């Protein structure tokens, strides 16, 4: 465990050194991240000025959810997309050996190999958006609520990791799908809307089979005092289930994988 923690720290350090070596890249992408946040707020403001509600969220609630969405998007864009973007190509070109031949768990290596720090601006902007939303709702957080929502954010991050990792497994079974890593990052955008916008059929799918609708809405609904204990239990259970399913499929995929003479 200590070895893995130490490796994790080293990967972080290397990524930080890379970010600081190419500083202009880092600053430009930080600026882009801020502009995306502004555009998200503009989009929701324009949409809600016409519709007043989305699902059962009003403007203040939509802002809180958007803030959580921005903060959790750090895990998607700054961590997972950076780490996973090479995986389908490594598999289709038979270059995964580089990871498999190391004396460390290959899933761990693939999952933490690269970080980008330009998305960290989303933490600040997301926090501001949540505070603005809560102010609009006239709501104040207790210390207990704050810790609980941080915990739910962490569980949501693990769920995002598990579902993203799970979504990559077709790479092992198709000859070449080098764009499969875009699937999760693209549909992650759907998480910023409440599950109520979907028809009952899709709502069931998106809260169980492919639980996109839970990632943002559970922490947000908890803040609005609407998350039942059953929903919170289901949220934790699904996270564990996807973690194990991803692990199982990874191992099954590795058994199927054949190298290209490295």
């Amino acid at each position, binding site marked *: 465990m200590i070895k893995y923690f130490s490796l994790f720290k080293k990967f972080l350090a290397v990524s930080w050194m890379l970010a600081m070596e*190419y500083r*202009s*890249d880092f600053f*430009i*992408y930080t600026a*882009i991240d801020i*502009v*995306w946040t502004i*555009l998200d707020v*503009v*989009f929701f403001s*324009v*949409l809600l000025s*016409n*519709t*007043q*509600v*989305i*699902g059962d969220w009003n403007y203040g609630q939509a802002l809180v959810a958007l803030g959580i969405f921005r903060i959790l998007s750090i895990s998607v864009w700054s961590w997972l997309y950076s780490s996973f973007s090479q995986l389908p190509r490594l598999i289709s070109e038979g270059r995964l050996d580089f990871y498999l031949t190391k004396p460390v768990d290959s899933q761990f290596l693939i999952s933490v190999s690269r970080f980008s720090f330009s998305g960290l601006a989303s933490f600040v902007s997301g926090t501001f958006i949540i505070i603005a939303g809560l102010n609009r709702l006239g709501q104040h957080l207790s210390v207990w609520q704050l810790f609980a929502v941080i915990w739910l954010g962490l569980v949501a991050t693990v769920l995002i990791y598990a579902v993203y990792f799970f979504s990559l497994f*077709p790479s092992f079974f*198709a*000859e*070449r*799908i*080098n*764009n*499969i890593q*875009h*699937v999760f990052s*693209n*549909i992650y*955008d*759907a998480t910023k*809307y409440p599950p*109520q*916008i*979907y*028809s009952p059929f*899709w709502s069931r799918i998106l809260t169980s089979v492919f639980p996109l609708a839970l990632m943002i809405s559970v922490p947000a609904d908890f803040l609005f005092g609407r998350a039942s204990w059953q929903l919170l239990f289901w949220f934790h259970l699904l996270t564990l289930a996807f973690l194990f399913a991803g692990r199982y499929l990874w191992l099954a995929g590795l058994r199927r994988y054949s190298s290209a003479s490295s």
Partner: protein
Amino acid sequence: MKLAWQSSLVYRGERIVWLLLEIAPAVLMINLWQSLLRSGRIDQSQFSFLSAYYLVNVFISRISGVNLEDKLIDDIKDGRISNYLLKPLSLPLSLFAQESSWRITAALYLLPLMPFFLPLIGSFTGLGVTHWQGIFFGLFILLSFLQKYFVAWIIGLTAFWIDESKSLVHARWMAEGIFGGIWLPLTFFPVWWQKIASFSPFYIWYYFPARLLLDPFPIPQIIKGMTVAIIWTLLLYLFARFIWSRAKFHYSAVGG
């Protein structure tokens, strides 16, 4: 053309993933509007218009989208465009041919889904589209394809001077969203915003052609839109040519 078709058949999985990625946002927005229809915040005709709007935009994106920037930037940075420069063929023309072929095959992948699309669009447009609507729609799509190609080409060529040229692709996506009406029809935005958007090239990339098909503008406005579109196409073409003529002198590569 033949090569593009063969490649699109061999790598079916990838092509289907791209198709799904283009359809997913439209399906999401249709679900959103459907929920507002269920709650009585919009009526059936508004819902039909919005559903048709997003579906037409998927179609427009399929037949006129250009995404060559990332590869062009990588090829320039890694010195791989030497292959083109050493042969008696023009890089911009060969990329144009590749993109055109890719668009045709991309549209073919959409065909199996048309039986699902057409009733939704047809239910809004009534009996169908008039000849004039079809002709103008085709012309605007052609102009928007040319503009998208020139913009992608210009963004790609910036790799000769700056390291962060891929960040400009984000700027294009943002402009498409706020001026092109790909996220929301521009009628949702304030009037001053719509006026600014109408003078940008992005206006005819999605919003204008979609409106032309679903809720046509009066003839003077179509002529104004066409004039602005032609001027932008010419300006972008001249600028792309100018940049390429300068860029070639900045290029250096090793090996080969």
